[in-house]
Each structure stands twice: as C-alpha cells, then as structure tokens.
C-alpha cells in the first residue's frame, strides 16, 4: 500500500553565529493510516520534523530532503499557496498549549467555522451545524454553550478539545500532534487522548504524535521513532519497546522511576558522543 507520507533524508538547517546548525539531520519515515510516535528530548529535532512536514519551518531556516511526498503531492516543489490550501484541509497540526494556539478574541465556534470556510464553500447554517457536531465529537457536553465561549473562558482540557475540533473539522488525512497533552493534567490528558484516538481510528487518519514522554507514546502509538540529536536512532513497534536495542532508548526507559520498583539511585543515561554522529 502506498504510504500517506513518505519522507527521505529530511534536513532542517538554521543559521547560527558560528556556521549553520542542523536541527534535523537526515530523517526518513513512512507513515500510513496509523499512529506513529516520535520521541526525543529537548533539542532532538522532533518538533522541527513535524513543522517541516507542515511547512511551518521558521523563515530563516532551510528545509531539504531527497523526497517529501504527501499522497501524490511533492511537498518540496509545492508552492506556498498550494501548501496553505493543504494545511487544515488535508493535514493539520495540534500544538502544545491551547492557550497560545487559539485566537483569544474570537469565540471557539467562530474559529471552527473560519477554518471550515477557508477550505470549503459552505452555507452559514451548514458550517454552524458541522462545527457543533465536531464539538460533540470531541465529547464537549454542552456544545452550544461552548460554541459561544472565548478561549480564556474554558479549562485547558476543554481548550485542547476545541483545538482538536478545529483541526479536524475540515477532515484532514494527516494529523500532526506536537506534545498535544503536555500542558494538561494527567487525568485530563488521558481523556483528550482517548478522544483523539477514537477520531483518528474512525476517520482513518494518519497520526504523527510528537512527545518527550516515552511511556505515553509507547502506550498510545502503533510504532515509535526515537530521535537523538536530529537523527533517528531507533524505530520499533510499541509492543517491542521493552526489547529496544539502542542504548539511548534503553537508557531513557530505565531512567524513569516506576511505581513498585525500588531502584536507588536511578540508572542515569550515559550519553555517548558516537550517538550523535
């Protein structure tokens, strides 16, 4: 089967004081209609990978790749206009904190309708209906009330649900979620993930889940990619995480405290310079 997303040798380079700095150094991945997790620590290039796919790389940086295909569209040669129409319509992105990614002076309902109207010619009544249906789909109990609220009037979990509703309303095939639940409390986190999980499964979307939380990603995704210093160090099925080969993945797993395990002191990751080669 043809993958939804096919990337080969992706590189993102930022200009630096002492020469260019590569944040992403040759990432290759294929994503079908599945849940793929990208795990890494700060500075591993995981977020820049997601942004490069979305076409949201900061203007001072340059993106190069041998291949960057989304369905049948070549993202490398696509015009900015083409990419804009792709965003939201066919690929969407959820960011970490709904507080910063929702427009504070527009009601939640209007923001969802705006997104829909950018991509489809719909009547006002239909747009409203679809927005309300979407709010219901993300399990907001009183969609009509939340529709007219501003982002600051809702909790973090509710805001992130509204964000998901906004991103999915135009029916994208690919969803990139960059730390979508890191700003949320643990129990809320799981509720939001359950909603995301169901929607992705029901609509047959491809999901790229970017997170620092190895445990969360491994329980949520089908496959996991582990990144270190801008490169993929290991790729494996979530079920096989316990048998990870790369010392970095193993070290990362081991360094987490776990309930019921008495390990004092905790094993510490011994970073080897050759991992970054």
């Amino acid at each position: 089967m043809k993958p939804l997303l096919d990337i080969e040798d992706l590189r993102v380079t930022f200009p630096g004081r002492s020469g260019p700095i590569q944040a992403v150094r040759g990432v290759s991945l294929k994503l079908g209609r599945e849940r793929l997790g990208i795990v890494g620590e700060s500075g591993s290039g995981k977020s820049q990978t997601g942004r490069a796919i979305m076409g949201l790389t900061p203007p001072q940086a340059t993106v190069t790749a041998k291949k960057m295909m989304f369905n049948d569209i070549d993202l490398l040669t696509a015009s900015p206009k083409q990419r804009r129409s792709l965003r939201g319509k066919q690929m969407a992105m959820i960011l970490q904190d709904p507080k910063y990614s929702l427009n504070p002076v527009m009601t939640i309902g209007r923001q969802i309708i705006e997104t829909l109207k950018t991509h489809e010619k719909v009547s006002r009544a239909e747009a409203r209906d679809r927005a309300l249906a979407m709010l219901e789909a993300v399990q907001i109990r009183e969609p009509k009330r939340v529709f007219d609220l501003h982002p600051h009037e809702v909790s973090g979990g509710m805001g992130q649900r509204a964000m998901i509703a906004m991103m999915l309303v135009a029916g994208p095939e690919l969803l990139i979620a960059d730390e979508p639940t890191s700003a949320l409390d643990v129990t809320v986190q799981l509720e939001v993930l359950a909603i995301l999980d169901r929607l992705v499964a029901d609509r047959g979307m491809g999901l790229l889940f970017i997170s620092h939380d190895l445990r969360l990603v491994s329980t949520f995704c089908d496959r996991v990619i582990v990144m270190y210093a801008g490169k993929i160090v290991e790729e494996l099925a979530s079920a096989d995480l316990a048998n990870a080969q790369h010392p970095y993945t193993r070290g990362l797993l081991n360094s987490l405290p776990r309930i019921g395990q008495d390990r004092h002191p905790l094993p510490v990751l011994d970073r080897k310079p050759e991992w970054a080669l």
Partner: protein
Amino acid sequence: MTAALEVKALGVEYHGHKALDNVSVSVARGESFGLVGESGSGKSTLLRAVAGLAPVSAGSIAIDGKALRQGKRDRAFYREVQMVFQDPYGSLHPRQTIDRALLEPLAIHGFDNTENRIVRALEEVGLGKGFRFRYPHQLSGGQRQRVAIARALIVEPSIVLLDEPTSALDASVQAEILNLLEQTRKARKLTFVMVSHDLAVVNHMCERLAIMQGGHVVETLPATALADHAFKADYTKKLFEASDGFTRREQA
C-alpha cells in the same frame, strides 16, 4: 518526638477563592514527604504557604514544634527551611553569575569563609569550579536546577521544600537530579517536602505521601501502599492508572 513540620487546619485564600481548605499535614524529622495532585489541587500553595509566599487565612504552621507567627518569618526560619522551584529557567536571576547567586544567601546570613563554601557547594551538586562565574543563560536546564539546589543547601537548612523540581526537565536529566537530591538528603539528614504531579516520581523519592485535590488532602499513604494497591480513594486510583500511560479501551 516533635514533627519537623506540622501544618494544622491550614487555609489559604486568594481573592475569595479558597486555594487550601482545612489542610493538616505532619512531616517527621528526616522524613521525605510527597504531595501529589493536579493543577488547582493546592499542592504548590501548601508549599508556598509554609515558605511564607502565600497568604494564610486560617490554621497554623509549626517548624520543630515552634509555631510561626502569621506572615512573619525571621532569618532563623530561612536558615532552617529552603526551597527549590519548578522552573530552573525562572528561579535564577538572569543578570547574576552563579557566584553571585550563591554568595547572596551567605552574605545575608553572615557566613564566614564564603570562598570555600561556594566551591564546596558547587562540588556537592556535581558542578565543577568552571561553572562558578557563568551566567544562567550559559547553563542547561539540569545545570540550572543543580545551582538552585546548591543555593538552597548552602545555608545548611534542615528542611527543603521541593516544588516540582524536575517537571521542566528531560527524563534522563530528571533521573540525575532525583539521584542528586536523594544523595544530599542522605548525607545531610534533610527533611524533604516534595510536590509533584507525577505519582511515580513521588513514589520513588518519598516515604509517605498525601494525595491532594481541590484544596483538600484526599488521602495520606505510605509510599509502599501504591505498589500494593492499598489505597481507598477513587481519585488516587485514577491518578495511579494515569501514571501507567494510555490504555486503549476496546470499542464494542
């Protein structure tokens, strides 16, 4: 034996909103005590109230059996009780070198032999002399948190309040900081009160813990109770399950 920290029926109000309501906690000398909860549970407020950074509206706080007068903390208190903050990027003065940050508490409390103390404090937290005259922006998050720990320990306190000391750090760095904290606690026989949203971290670090929700203590448990599933409150169960990661419920 008198408790190192005794909080009785404590209430904290911010603009009419009760952040803490009738909270009682007792921490024995040399013990490591955890406070677990989600945002708005009041766990950080409790810590800040003890440190004198939150407006106490009811109840009492006692250190080593001596009750603290409302809102008043003297220098002796701050030699006994120190705090490490959550955000290592925000807890160090951006325009002061590490040296200044460590010298300041020594100057305030009139310590002698400051040179040696600063060098020793840096060594204790695993930062060499090379870090002494750097500015915070030249350090990584983990290194900053080490400096914050050194700053808290340099006045030789007996009680250290830890407000989510590792939640802003990467997992591998978290392990290093947790190990450092444990090691200093052992070496200096410190009493820890540690706040975290991560049940596993508190379970690892503490002997007893209190689960907090909505400004109340839901349940106080020995840490071993978690592994044995010996908890009663539903909320504790929910947190416990959440700490295991995501579980996919098969759809019918």
